[in-house]
Every structure is written in structure tokens, then in C-alpha cells.
């Protein structure tokens, strides 16, 4: 038994020893030199820096700190950034040759100069080694690629393709980044290579990373002037970047409340509420209600598998639309924090300007056939109603309701919905709907709890349809299952987010997938058009758009026509934008983009993030986490830090 006591004593001693030491999660560098960012993909059990391989994740700092490509377009401001390229691409008359002029004086982090050869190599190695992310499209389109001189690349294309440059243009999230030729050419099998340690073309280098996959630590390059970010916007302010995964949301909130996590990816409204009250330096987008960033480039919709009965009937889809009281969904399901998406795109600031606002008049006059009558389904007053509700709740509404909640949505008209359904043979007995064959109508709505708003939309809409008299249940599934079923068409109705947007008005790259040629039978994996929408008019419009150059004025007209077809047919019910609570802490770093100063999108998981870093300011130097600071101090530092971009 003596032994036992000794063990116990030992355990107790160790416990006491650890208690005397304070917690230290972060690396031992001055806090004022460090920006701590939430790692979007969570834990990656194996870090692979060869992100040109399929199924590798680049969003945990790799594409933001180490990678670079020719162009970027910021989705919020719509600004075109020439990164590695010195100017936009030049096409010949029939769009079969694309010439790119590169910036001079850009260097890899190991001191080798970046030249046209790197770009040529990136394309050729992917064509020669099928299995890379861009092997397919490059072999489809590229006839030849060569360096005309050290800073000029010429792409000869197999067929006219006026949007070829988009492969090297970060519109959303990422694109094809440029490979270091001097590293990869020495590798025997580039597909098996893990590119570790990585050579950087971005403004940072990898200093250290966790083999277990929880964090990645980057240090600013000494020669940051020799990178695109340095040349375009100057010195990225944080000397160090740390991408870290803290685990469940509760822990992220605690970490930011302790000023140990500067940027958090999408909190739930409730978590944001907690954080807002715990840390007054936390901010999302709007200074006041509804706070959230509503400029993400996707919008949520209730998607039908259009090959399945009864969702193949247009009247049924419209009836289900009109059976939704969207105001109730927004208020009770989302606490009033959501922007409405009546058109089948994501109403970002940019897209509202291109499409929602110009089409508003058309929407107001738009009618659907109900029996012998024409019914105007659009209701532009909903944003105002929500604003009224918000004011009743005691919130300040500081901007025009239209700029926060969108231009409006479809009316809540269960009576019209009833007529539409009865028209196509449905019956209603004792408040319950029956299919034309007499069976009770049951809907299973698929939602993804990991993407909390998807689940919330599903639950809120299921509630609406139940009130309408349809037996609706929600089935929540894991991400893998969710996307597999999406691809295979294994759903009746699902809460997905099929609508999209970007910084450019040219919607063809995003919408070509709705073409009928991508429709495959249910049960086969579809990579686009998962709702299996076979529509000749829409497909014709997409075909016409394909031949036009991205700056062609006719494109805008065609895009609007396409959205009109979407509204007419209602292939899926587009509801709200993917709002996000990307909380950032202004305790250490300030001048993040906001509704007042929307100079860039706040998405720190996109490759575009590297261009945001030069605009950040830290409030004062030197800085230590332990030091308390008074509010007066904060006031003066605000003055000191309000150097904004525009």
C-alpha cells in the first residue's frame, strides 16, 4: 500500500506544480505583432502544402499567406486587383489567344525570381500529370503555353474561351495558384510531393506548424516588398499570422473574450450575442442591429429534386413558396438577421446593385396564373415590416431597410397556394393535404446542422408548411451525407445554398452549371445542376452568354433574362443570403472592413485576405496581453488608428 500512497503523492505534486504556472496558448511573440485567425477547415490531421492536388485544404492560412496568382476580384467592392499580373489579360479577336504581362521584381521566398516560366510550368505540369485539380480544364482548353519573354506568357487555346483567365483569377475563395518551377521540376512525381517546407510567393513564410493539425504559424517575409501584396498595397501589418482551431464555438467565444483570437469564422447569432456582451471590442459588420456580414457570395434555397413527383410541377413549387410567411421565418428563425433573396442569386452589395434593384420594378409587376386570374406575388414591403419589428424590439436601425434586408420577397398567400394546388389535383381534408392519388402529402426536408443556418431554415420552413397542412419533417444529416445526397439527387426538398454571386457582373462562370446538359439521372453523381433542372430557355441563354466576352454590354441583359426565367419557373425557392457572424476583435488590431467602411470583404478564409493585411492597424506598440488598458487610452488610439483606405 505504501507504493500506492507514493503514486498518489506524486500525482498531487504534479497537479500543484501545474497550478503555479499560467496558461499560455499562444507563441511567445509580442501580441502586437501577431494576428490570430480562426482556422476555417478545423483540424487537419495531415498538412499538405501541395494544394494543387485534389482534396487538399488551402483555407487554413496556406492560400492567404503563402500562395499567389495572377488576379483577384474582391466580391464586396468589385475591385479588380492585378497581383502577379501587371494588367488584365489581353485576348485576340476570337478569344483563342490570351496574353498576360507579369509584374517584374517579384521573388519567391528562397530568393529565386518569379518569371513567366513559373506560370508556364504550372500549366504544363498539370497537363502532363493528370490528377491535379486543374489537369482537366487545362488539357481541355490549352493548346500551347509559352513564355514570350521573361515577363510575358502566351496561352494558345484549343477553342475560343473568353473567360480562360478565370482559372487564375480568385473570384471566390481560391483559384489556380502558381507553382515554383525550381522546386517542382526536381521532383520525380509531383502528384505525390507534399511541398514541405513550402516556398512562398505570398507575403509570409511558414515558420512552424502543428503536426497534429491544430495551428499554422507564419512570419512576414523580410523581403515583403518583393511580393504582389507589398507592391500593390504595401507592408502587411502583422509580423506574424497564426491560424488556429480552438474547437467548438464556445471555446472560440471564450478565446476572443480573452483577446486571444482576433477573427472568428461564422458564429451562431446566440454565440455572437454572448461575445458582444463580453467583449465590447468585438465587431462584425454593422455597428448596431443586425450586426451580421450579409455579403457572403451564396444564398440559401429550398431545393427540389425536379425529377421527383410532385416537385416537377411548377404550380406545386409556387404554392410552397406562397405558403411561407417569410417575415415570420426571418423574425422567429433568424431573429430578424437575414437579407432576403427573391432572385436566384446572392444579394451582396455588388449584386443588389447589378440585379436586385434594377429588376425590382419587373418583380412588382410580375404575375402568375392562378385559375383564370393573374396574381402579383411580389411584396416589396417586407423589409420595412422587419425594420418596424426591429424598432419595436428596441434596436436601432441605422440604414435604409432595403440596404439591410433586401428588396422584398414573395407574399404570404396560403389562399392562393391552396388554389394552385387544387388546380393540379391536390385535395385538402381536415386541414391536411393529400396528393392527387389520395395519399397524404409528406415532405422530408434535409438540413445540415453543421451549417447552423441551413438547419434553422429547414426547421423554420418545415414549421410554415406544417401550419399550411403538409406533414413536414426535418432530417438533419452530417456534411458528407448532405453533399452526397445533393449530388445524387437523393432528396425531395433540401436546405442547400445553390445561389451564388461574385465581384464581377458576369454571372456565366457561376451559372453555366444550370445548363440542361449537366442534368444526370437521379442516383448518378452530378457535379452541377443537382436539382436536375431541364429548361430549354435557360440553357439557350447560358449558351448565348458563353460566346460573349466578359465585358460585353449584352451580357447584363442576358443575365437579367436568365433570372426572370428562374422566377417564372421557381426551380428552387431562393430565400435568404448566407449571412455570417465573422466576429473580429478590435482590441489589438483595428480597421477591419465594416458597413461604414466596406473597403473589402471580411472573409479571411479566401485568398483575397492577403490584400487586407496592409490595411490593418494595431492600436499601439509595444503591447502585452496582460496589460490592462483604460478607455481613455482606447479613445486616443482610435484617433491614431483611423487611417482608412478611402
Amino acid at each position, binding site marked *: 500500500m505504501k507504493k500506492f500512497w507514493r503514486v498518489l503523492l506524486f500525482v498531487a505534486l504534479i497537479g500543484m506544480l501545474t497550478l503555479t504556472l499560467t496558461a499560455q496558448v499562444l507563441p511567445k511573440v509580442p501580441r502586437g505583432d501577431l494576428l490570430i485567425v480562426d482556422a476555417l477547415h478545423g483540424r487537419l490531421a495531415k498538412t499538405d502544402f501541395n494544394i494543387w492536388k485534389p482534396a487538399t485544404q488551402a483555407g487554413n492560412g496556406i492560400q492567404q499567406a503563402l500562395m499567389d496568382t495572377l488576379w483577384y476580384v474582391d466580391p464586396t467592392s468589385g475591385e479588380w486587383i492585378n497581383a502577379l499580373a501587371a494588367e488584365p489579360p489581353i485576348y485576340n479577336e476570337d478569344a483563342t489567344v490570351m496574353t498576360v504581362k507579369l509584374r517584374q521584381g517579384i521573388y519567391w521566398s528562397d530568393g529565386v525570381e518569379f518569371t513567366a516560366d513559373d506560370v508556364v510550368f504550372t500549366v504544363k505540369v498539370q497537363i502532363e500529370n493528370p490528377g491535379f485539380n486543374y489537369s482537366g480544364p487545362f488539357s481541355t482548353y490549352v493548346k500551347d503555353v509559352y513564355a514570350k519573354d521573361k515577363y510575358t506568357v502566351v496561352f494558345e487555346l484549343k477553342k475560343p474561351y473568353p473567360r480562360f483567365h478565370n482559372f487564375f483569377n480568385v473570384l471566390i475563395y481560391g483559384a489556380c495558384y502558381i507553382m515554383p518551377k525550381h522546386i517542382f521540376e526536381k521532383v520525380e512525381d509531383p502528384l505525390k510531393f507534399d511541398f514541405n517546407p513550402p516556398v512562398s510567393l505570398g507575403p509570409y513564410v511558414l515558420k512552424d506548424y502543428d503536426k497534429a493539425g491544430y495551428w499554422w504559424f507564419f512570419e512576414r517575409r523580410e523581403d515583403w516588398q518583393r511580393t504582389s501584396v507589398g507592391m500593390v498595397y504595401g507592408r502587411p501589418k502583422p509580423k506574424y499570422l497564426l491560424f488556429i482551431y480552438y474547437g467548438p464555438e464556445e471555446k472560440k467565444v471564450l478565446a476572443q473574450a480573452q483577446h486571444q483570437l482576433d477573427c472568428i469564422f461564422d458564429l451562431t447569432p446566440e454565440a455572437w450575442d454572448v461575445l458582444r456582451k463580453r467583449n465590447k471590442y468585438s465587431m462584425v459588420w454593422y455597428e448596431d442591429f443586425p450586426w451580421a456580414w450579409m455579403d457572403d457570395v451564396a444564398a440559401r434555397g429550398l431545393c427540389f429534386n425536379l425529377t421527383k413527383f410532385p416537385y416537377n410541377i411548377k404550380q406545386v413549387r409556387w404554392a410552397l413558396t406562397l405558403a411561407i410567411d417569410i417575415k415570420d421565418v426571418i423574425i422567429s428563425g433568424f431573429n430578424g438577421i437575414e437579407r432576403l433573396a427573391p432572385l436566384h442569386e446572392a444579394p451582396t452589395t455588388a449584386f443588389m446593385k447589378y440585379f436586385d434593384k434594377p429588376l425590382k420594378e419587373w418583380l412588382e409587376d410580375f404575375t402568375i396564373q392562378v385559375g383564370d386570374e393573374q396574381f402579383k406575388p411580389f411584396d416589396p414591403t417586407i423589409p420595412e415590416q422587419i425594420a418596424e419589428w426591429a424598432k419595436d424590439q428596441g434596436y436601432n436601425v441605422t440604414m435604409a431597410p432595403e440596404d439591410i434586408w433586401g428588396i422584398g420577397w414573395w407574399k404570404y398567400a396560403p389562399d392562393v397556394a391552396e388554389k394552385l394546388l387544387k388546380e393540379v389535383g391536390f385535395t385538402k381534408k381536415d386541414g391536411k393535404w393529400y396528393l392527387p392519388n389520395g395519399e397524404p402529402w409528406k415532405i422530408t426536408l434535409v438540413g445540415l446542422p453543421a451549417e447552423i443556418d441551413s438547419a434553422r431554415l429547414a426547421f423554420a420552413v418545415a414549421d410554415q408548411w406544417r401550419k399550411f397542412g403538409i406533414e413536414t419533417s426535418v432530417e438533419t444529416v*452530417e456534411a458528407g451525407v448532405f453533399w452526397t445526397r445533393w449530388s445524387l439527387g437523393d432528396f425531395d426538398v433540401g436546405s442547400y445554398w445553390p445561389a451564388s454571386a461574385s465581384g464581377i457582373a458576369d454571372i456565366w462562370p457561376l451559372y453555366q452549371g444550370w445548363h440542361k446538359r449537366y442534368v444526370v439521372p437521379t442516383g448518378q453523381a452530378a457535379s452541377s445542376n443537382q436539382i436536375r433542372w431541364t429548361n430549354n430557355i435557360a440553357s439557350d441563354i447560358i449558351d448565348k452568354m458563353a460566346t460573349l466576352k466578359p465585358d460585353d454590354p449584352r451580357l447584363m441583359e442576358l443575365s437579367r433574362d436568365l433570372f426572370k426565367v428562374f422566377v417564372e419557373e421557381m426551380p428552387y425557392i431562393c430565400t435568404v443570403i448566407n449571412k455570417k457572424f465573422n466576429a473580429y476583435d478590435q482590441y489589438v488590431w483595428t480597421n477591419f472592413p465594416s458597413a461604414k467602411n466596406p473597403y473589402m470583404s471580411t472573409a479571411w478564409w479566401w485568398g483575397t485576405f492577403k490584400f487586407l493585411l496592409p490595411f490593418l492597424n494595431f492600436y499601439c506598440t509595444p503591447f502585452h496581453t496582460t496589460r490592462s488598458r483604460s478607455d481613455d487610452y482606447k479613445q486616443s488610439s482610435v484617433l491614431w488608428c483611423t487611417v482608412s483606405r478611402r
Partner: protein
Amino acid sequence: MIERKRENPVKAFFVILRDMIKYNKGFAFGFFFIMLALCLTFLSFFSPYNPKSWNVVPKDLPPSLKHLLGTNSVGQDVFWLLTFAIGNSFLLGSVTAIIASTVGTIVGLVAGYKGGIADRILMSLNDTFIVLPSLPILIFLAFSLRENLNVVTMGMILSVFSWPWGGRQIRAMVLSLREREFTYTADSSGMNTFKIVFKEHFPFIIPWVMANFINTILWSIGMEVTLAVFGLSSLETPTIGTMIYWSTQYQALFRGIWWWVLTPVVLAVLLFVSLFFVSSGITEFLDPRTRLQRIKARG
């Protein structure tokens, strides 16, 4: 007591129950709590709200006379939700326990008495299931069967992993009982095997089966809570696990909506404690050792 049992088993049962409640405080507590829980379950049939609907009452109200346990952030009444959760969790546990105990007992008995090849086959099957990593497989099953997941199917899935423990234990008991003196005595005095098993051995096995039954209920409820943490339960069905899931989804603890998060937690604890007391009360009452003395004395 055995004499009484022969007279009228129903009456005897109530007499025993009365005695146990009188002399065993833990048992009394457990028994009354379980009765209360059953009453609450019964109440759920009179619930004014559909547990699957949201926004039927104002949100985030603290407990009051109108809403006994307050309301949650999706607009449900926590008290009425609780009545459903108790019932569903009980049902889940009972399904698991009934299947697991039945299969486990039969396998254990057959393996113990038959011996030989039957024993070897059954026990290797048994051991295979013990060795299988249960949680990952459960996660995988819950994950794949999502569509058909309800309280009953979930209970069935859980029972797959809980029967072997009971089976093993019963076999060991039978093996030791077979070697006891009284078995030899009964055997040599010409009692047939069937009679020996049911008259002499069952009194030893039954208490263990009952204790195991209750433990399986507990294990099953606990497992459902674990799966629900990952959202791998039938999330629309109120159970202890899904109540905890939704309350953490809405950060109830941080936002000070304690009545939402504490209700399922306290319920889980109370349910466990009372089932534990009941189970140990039964075991104590039916303790084979005191039993053995009684049988010996009678013989």
C-alpha cells in the same frame, strides 16, 4: 417470503415493495422519482404543444407559473418538452435493455449449460462484439441510418453493443453454479436438469439480470446523449440528448438561460441516481448469499 409468494404473487409483490420503501431510503427515493417520471411521461399525451413545432410560445422566458420550467430560444415550453424527453429516453433505454437482456441471458444460459461447441461458438461471437470498437461503429451507424433514425431503431442499434457484456457474465455465473454443492445434491437426488435450472439456479441469476437491465437502460441513455452531442440523433425528437444538443447549439449556458440546459442535465442525473438506487435495492434484497442461506435453512 417464499411461502407468501406461493400464496399470491401479486400481493406478495406489493408487500415486498412496501417493505423496501419503508426500510431502504435510497430505494424509496428512486422508486418515487421513477413513478414521477412515468407520470410526467403520461402527461405528455396531454401536452398543449407539438414537440416538433417551433415558436409556439414566447422565447427565453424564465420559469413562471405559466411556463413551469420556462421557455427556450426556439419558442418551446421546456416543461412540456421535458415530459416528451423523459418518455422517449425511457423508451430508448427500455428497448435497448429488453433486447440486450433477453439475448444476453439466452446466450449466457445456453453457453453455460450446453458447453462444448455451442459454448465456443457463442462465446467467440460474444467476444467479437466486445472487442469491436463500439462508439465509432455507433457513430457510423447513426450517421448512415439517419433517415430511419428514431427512438426505437436507435435503441435497437445500441442493444447490438450491450448484450455481450451480460451474456458473458451470465455464462460465468452458470459455470460456477453448476459446480456448487446444491446442484450436485439436487442432481444426485434425481431432480431433472430443467427443474434444477429453474428452481435452483434462476433465483441467483434473476437479480443479476435485473441489475443488468437497469444498467443497460442507463448506458443506453448516456450513449444517446453522447451521440446527440455530435448531432447524430433524431434531432427533432425530444430526448435528454437532443435537449442538451439544442441548448448548446443556442449557447443557453452562456446566455444565462439556465433552465433550458439544466433541465436535461438534472433530469439525467436524477434518473441515473434513482435507477441506481432501485437496482442496488433489488440486488440487496435478492442477494444470492442471503438467498443461499435461506435455501440452505429450508433444505
